[in-house]
């Protein structure tokens, strides 16, 4: 029945002169999502409306599922397209449409007509009234409510006539690529993929950095992170995943610094390296999955200590989330099952039984001086191990 989808967008509507940029990015992202679907499609932008037209047979549910991953979409309306064969035919077709879509007729409706083709013989108001009358005649249980209808039946008269009445909610947010790029610190845990999802919902393109520590972390742990990045890329678009070998830095810190400060100092070096990569690759900030108080390294004191080494902004979209809320999102976006696979990541291997929860920044800085002899060399060596994988959901 449906051959097209009308794409409704929310916040883009208010973007003034920049609106076309947002719309173009949205079209790009819709095309990226449709690449995964069986069939041929065209995405058109006409008179402030974005349409997805199927050019071949397609799987309705598959298309809707994938359009739901596109940030910037507020609603997806499946549209019936009719040839203009006179008003009588139109009325008959609309009656049959309503019959198919709403088997149970106990509801109120309103007809809303837009006449883009002005030479159509009836005016919008007339169409509203006459179609309404035809529907009431066909289904006497129906009622009209012009203020708060249960169903808003839209009829758009263009070259062809478009009929739609249902809106499937989209994810909201802004289209990817309308807000610069950020670099996500991606571990194998539950939080960081969610942080990536949340920030890209605001139109931010993301790259990711993963620190691996062979032989303490395994090839499977690395594969897990690639898999997580791939799931996030379903929403965020392609991700450049940087894989950095962090073992030597970690062992050096282990040798030179107090054990209970290991995690904090290690994280400071992770931030430094991520920041270096961000600056080299045109990112405007770092993104982490931190949430206040979740673990020792995420108390406000610890966050201050790690933030201290950053000169670019660090975005923490989960900062006020409870763990449960994060888990809920991770289940919704399908990263949860992968996140809980039991592979050791580099944050847990040497973790102290009682790490500091309220590190003193000055003390940390002083202890970091113990590393002066070799650390620059080790950081450079770690940067040299950078392996970049382009992760794309459609691959």
């Amino acid at each position, binding site marked *: 029945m449906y051959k097209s989808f009308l794409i409704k967008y929310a916040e883009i509507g208010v973007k003034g002169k920049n609106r076309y940029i947002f719309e173009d990015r949205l079209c790009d992202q819709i095309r990226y999502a449709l690449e995964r679907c069986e069939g041929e499609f065209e995405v058109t932008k006409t008179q402030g409306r974005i349409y997805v037209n199927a050019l071949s047979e397609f799987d309705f549910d598959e298309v809707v599922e994938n359009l739901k991953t596109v940030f910037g979409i507020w609603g997806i309306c499946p549209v019936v397209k009719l040839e203009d064969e006179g008003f009588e035919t139109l009325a008959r077709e609309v009656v049959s449409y309503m019959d198919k879509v709403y088997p149970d007729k106990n509801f109120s409706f309103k007809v809303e007509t837009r006449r883009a083709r002005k030479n159509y013989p009836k005016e919008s108001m007339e169409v509203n009234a006459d179609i309404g009358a035809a529907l009431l005649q066909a289904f006497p249980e129906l009622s009209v409510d012009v203020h708060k209808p249960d169903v808003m039946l839209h009829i758009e008269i263009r070259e062809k006539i478009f009929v739609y009445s249902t809106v499937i909610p989209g994810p909201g947010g802004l289209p990817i690529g309308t807000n610069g790029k950020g670099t996500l610190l991606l571990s194998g845990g539950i939080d960081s993929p969610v942080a990536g999802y949340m920030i890209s919902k605001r139109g931010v393109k993301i790259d990711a950095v993963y620190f691996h520590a*062979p*032989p*303490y*972390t*395994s*090839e499977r742990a690395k594969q897990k992170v690639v898999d997580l990045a791939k799931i996030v890329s379903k929403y965020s678009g392609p991700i450049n995943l940087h894989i950095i070998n962090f073992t030597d830095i970690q*062992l050096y810190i*282990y*040798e030179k610094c107090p*054990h209970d400060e290991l995690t904090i100092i290690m994280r400071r070096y992770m931030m430094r390296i991520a920041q270096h990569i961000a600056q080299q690759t045109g990112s405007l900030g770092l993104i982490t999955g931190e949430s206040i108080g979740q673990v020792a390294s995420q108390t406000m004191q610890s966050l201050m200590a790690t933030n201290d080494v950053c000169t670019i902004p660090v975005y923490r979209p989960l900062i006020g989330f409870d763990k449960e809320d994060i888990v809920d999102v991770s289940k919704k976006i399908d990263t949860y099952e992968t996140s809980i696979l*039991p*592979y*050791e990541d580099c944050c*847990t*291997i*040497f*973790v*102290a*039984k009682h790490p500091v929860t309220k590190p003193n920044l000055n003390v940390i800085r002083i202890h970091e001086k113990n590393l002066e002899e070799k650390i620059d060399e080790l950081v450079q060596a770690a940067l040299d191990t950078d392996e970049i994988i382009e992760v794309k959901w459609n691959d």
Partner: protein
Amino acid sequence: MEVYLDNSATTRCLPDVAKLMTQIMCEDYGNPSSMHNKGVEAEKYLRKAKETIAKLLKVQEKEILFTSGGTESDNIALIGVAMAHCREGRHIITTQIEHPAILQTCAFLEEQGFQITYLPVDKDGVVSLAALEKAMTRQTILVSIMHTNNEIGALQPIAQAGELIKRMNPNTLFHVDAVQGFGKSKIYPKKMNIDLLSVSAHKIHGPKGVGFLYINEKVKIKPIIFGGGQQKGMRSGTENVPGIAGMALAAEEAYCNFDAKMDYLYSIKQRFIDGVCKIEGIKINGKTGRDSAPHVVSVSVQGVRSEVMLHALEDKGIYVSAGSACASNKPSISATLKAIGVEKQFLDSTLRFSFSAYTTEEEIDYTLQQLQTIIPMLRRYVRK
């Protein structure tokens, strides 16, 4: 240098086996149940495989049932016997150190109302015959004991157990999981009072996804897979002709120069043990001489986690298994290591090295040399 010392997990398929299988898949690909010549041709491979395997075990051809591997053989043996004999009794005896294919099947049978006794083992992983004798009752329909333990290579007193079981209750059936033992020990079911014997092809340089179950002709057993009635209705499903032919060839190869191969395996095992014992803070689990399996050595290394050691060895091209898989958030401690009383500190610090007749002395020496440098290095960094 690549050194594969994980032959208890799986082995490399012999080139001749792969060649034969390719030929069957690409040319003699008929369905053995088909009436035409192409089917007859395929059936010939099955007959020949049966003949080969029956001869090696000194049993009858009709007593060999082809399966998808060790796990399926174990499942058919336990569930099939339990179903067929539940009216005579609902008691089954096994050991604490069996493979999950046995333990999980027993857990399923427990849910179905069977009572299972899990026999303990001594510090070397050997089951006690006295405990077996004590556990036997008139209700015992089946005893299942593995031939060779997969984690520490402990050999079980199968012949003595067989004799004991039949003396106490001639109706009690005796199943042996010989997935690790077949091809490393000469097993003759008729002489050892074994009624059912599970074997897998990929542990003896054959293909994965194929195995067999020896079932003594007198054993009453029910099928657990139903369908087109192949293999006399005992295991429906089109036979895996290439796999079965490949398995028979691999088995034949394993028995060729058998004694020389065993002597060689024991010699490299000893060479490895001698070398590894020179490293400080090392412990070998289980027996090490001719009274243990020729191809498995379980080594506990004080103060180093097995997963880390495994990846460090991997980095040098050496592939081994962790004694028990363990990660920070999901410990899965090995039942065997626990059963033999390995101390807590070693449970997560154990590696399994398993050899094949194709392992070279040079590979052993290279591995020893790497262990001597890796272990002290890793000991410098431990979780405090």
